[in-house]
């Protein structure tokens, strides 16, 4: 190669070194600010498969931050948010970037359990509090427990266990079918439901699973054997819920008396009820928030929500979770007077904090770092001429089920 080529190689190398030094300097300068704002890093799914969920959660926590004027105990709280595109590799990179380059005090996280499981080990090693604010319900996120991992939302099974029991005892379903995609986030919930349903006396006669990302569900509906009372499905992602329901109705299963008994995503006021209206009447679901719940906290939340976002998208479970998570976090920060640098004190404050949820009488954390909260059994009914969810029963202060409860056999650890 000619001298010119080596010169060029050299120039590129020099450019690289300069860029490197520049970024190092910049981040050092930023870190050198004394005290400065509380830095909350948020590693979440703004695009990709679970992005609708994470974006709803984001609406919730942005709302709370706005409510408190981005200030806790007189100190500014600054969020540094990156999109991990629902890709676990990018989620890891983002976590590393937030912790090592942006020097965040707290590492917040969105929805994807798989990524959360990977990141919590890293956060533990780096001694940075890892706070799951979106869904990320897999049991492995908080079990076995890690000191720095806290999940403010809920764990798989927390809702499904009470629902399983309710389905047999109160709804009289004797035989049920489980449906969902074949991945831990779904099978975990299905299995939890099954445990309690069968313990109460019911029988699961069939389990239909499909590959994650499967687009056309018609072949799976066609496989259902005729002898069952109801289906418990779990579908991740909101729009997929519509697709499931659409095909459920297309196959006339509701007319044949095959009921649905589900987790809240499938009966939310803001989407499936808007789409299918009266067809949804009668469907039961378990939820941690209900739009029509009558409490001052819920009124406060929905008023703020509509003021900021308008009424195009109704308030929902995910937004409520985001709002409550941020409220919880900020309450803990308030308790330590914003002194987030004292990580021990912050973790202790998190474990001792108790807040009133939008619907839940109280939200707090158990010894494993998972949230304890109320759950509600609700049904789609027509009240005052409007199709909506109505709470039938409150199940108070539900905890995460013990380890192993949500692991479908043959699906690994």
């Amino acid at each position: 190669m000619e001298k010119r080529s080596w010169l060029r190689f050299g120039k590129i190398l020099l450019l690289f070194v300069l860029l490197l030094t520049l970024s190092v300097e910049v981040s050092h300068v930023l870190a050198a600010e004394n005290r400065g704002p509380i830095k909350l890093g948020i590693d979440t799914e703004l695009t990709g498969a679970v992005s609708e969920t994470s974006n709803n959660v984001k609406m919730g926590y942005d709302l709370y931050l706005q409510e408190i004027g981005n200030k806790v105990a007189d100190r500014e709280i600054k969020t540094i948010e990156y999109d991990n595109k629902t890709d676990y590799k990018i989620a890891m990179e983002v976590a590393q970037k937030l912790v090592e380059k942006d020097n965040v005090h707290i590492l917040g996280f969105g929805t994807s359990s798989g990524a959360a499981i990977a990141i919590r080990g890293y956060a533990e090693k780096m001694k940075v509090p890892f706070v799951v604010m979106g869904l990320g319900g897999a049991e492995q996120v908080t079990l076995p427990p890690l000191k720095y991992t806290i999940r403010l939302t809920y764990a798989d099974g927390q809702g499904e266990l009470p629902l399983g029991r309710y389905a047999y005892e109160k709804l009289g379903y004797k035989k049920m079918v489980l449906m969902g995609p074949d991945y831990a986030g779904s099978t975990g919930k299905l299995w939890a439901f099954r445990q309690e349903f069968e313990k109460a006396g019911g029988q699961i006669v069939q389990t239909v699973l499909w590959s994650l990302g499967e687009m056309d569900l018609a072949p799976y509906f066609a496989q259902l054997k005729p002898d069952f009372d109801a289906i418990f499905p779990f579908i991740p992602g909101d729009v997929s819920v519509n697709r499931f329901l659409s095909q459920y109705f297309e196959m006339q299963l509701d007319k044949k008396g095959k009921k649905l008994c589900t987790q809240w995503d499938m009966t939310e006021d803001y989407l499936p009820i808007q789409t299918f209206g009266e067809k949804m009447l009668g469907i039961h679901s378990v939820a941690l928030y209900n739009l029509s719940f009558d409490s001052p906290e819920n009124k406060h939340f929905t008023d703020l929500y509509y003021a900021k976002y308008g009424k195009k998208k109704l308030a929902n479970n995910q937004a409520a979770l985001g709002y409550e998570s941020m409220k919880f976090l900020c309450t803990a920060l308030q308790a330590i007077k914003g002194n987030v640098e004292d990580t021990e004190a912050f973790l202790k404050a998190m474990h001792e904090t108790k807040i009133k949820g939008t619907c839940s009488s109280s939200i707090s954390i158990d010894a494993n770092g998972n949230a304890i909260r109320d759950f509600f059994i609700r049904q789609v009914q027509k009240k005052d001429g409007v199709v909506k969810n109505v709470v039938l029963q409150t199940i108070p202060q539900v905890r995460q089920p013990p380890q192993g409860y949500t692991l479908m056999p043959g699906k690994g650890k």
Partner: protein
Amino acid sequence: MTSDKWKWVFYAVLGIVLVILIPLSPRYVQTLAISIIIYSIYVCSTNLLTGYTGLVSLGQAIFWGSAAYLVAILTTHGVVKNFYLVFLIAILSVMIIGAAFGVLALRAKRLYFMILTFAFGHVVWSIAMYALQPVTYGFNGIRDILRPDLGLSWSLENNSNFYYFTLAVGALCFFIVSLIIHSPFGRILVGIRDNEHRMIALGCNTFLYKFLSYIVSAIIAGVGGILFAYFNGYVNPSELHWVWSGEALMMMFIGGIGTFWGPALGALVFTGLRYWVSAYTMYWFGVEGTIFVLVVLFFRGGISGFITDLPRRKIPSKP
């Protein structure tokens, strides 16, 4: 000054950056550097197969991912703890898989070869995702992979030490590939890439050479996968996904197909750029795609080609 002298100046500066500067930089720079080196090993394997032998494969992730999974499974399940044994098992397995798939895939040509490699990749991905779920934990992946114990007093838990380890392995891989390319064997590979029919006419058993190239590429990709598993501490089916194979091709192309520095430059640009660009925009794919289009249309030799001024092929006049 002669070009030789400039070459040594360049190498000296590079050496200082790699051996001294980076270990002294903040942790996140080291982390980034380790990722780049490991990815460049992966791209180096693709470069050998595609850049020098002319076989476009969408299945390199099979070897990267399988090796990574083997490390994960063997160490976390406590089956084998010794690093050297794990390494040996992973490499041997990758060789066997490479031989099996190679024998079948190489019967097809060009596009069909590419699609076959993609199909094989999809099969392996499904196995990790569904069939072997009790062992691989499917979608959730395998976590808590510990750093290897080299049996020296030098611990790889330390980021800096791991960086040196990675650097050494990376340099070794590049060196080996360089030896291969400059050997008679390598020259035959290039001959096959440029004109397979002529090589056959000259009495060369091109199938055998392509097969060997396929296996060697598989081994090198496997080395990358092993390092990745230990470094990342977590393995999940996306390491086997065909998109990852496609990204290797892209990195190779951006860096300069069929060049020595191509893989390193490609991995550097791809990873480094993504790291910085994604702080400002989430439309990273669009940026990547545009760079790619520009490279294909105007800088056909990639960055490396641009640097060494590869003569550009003339676009044929309209038919």
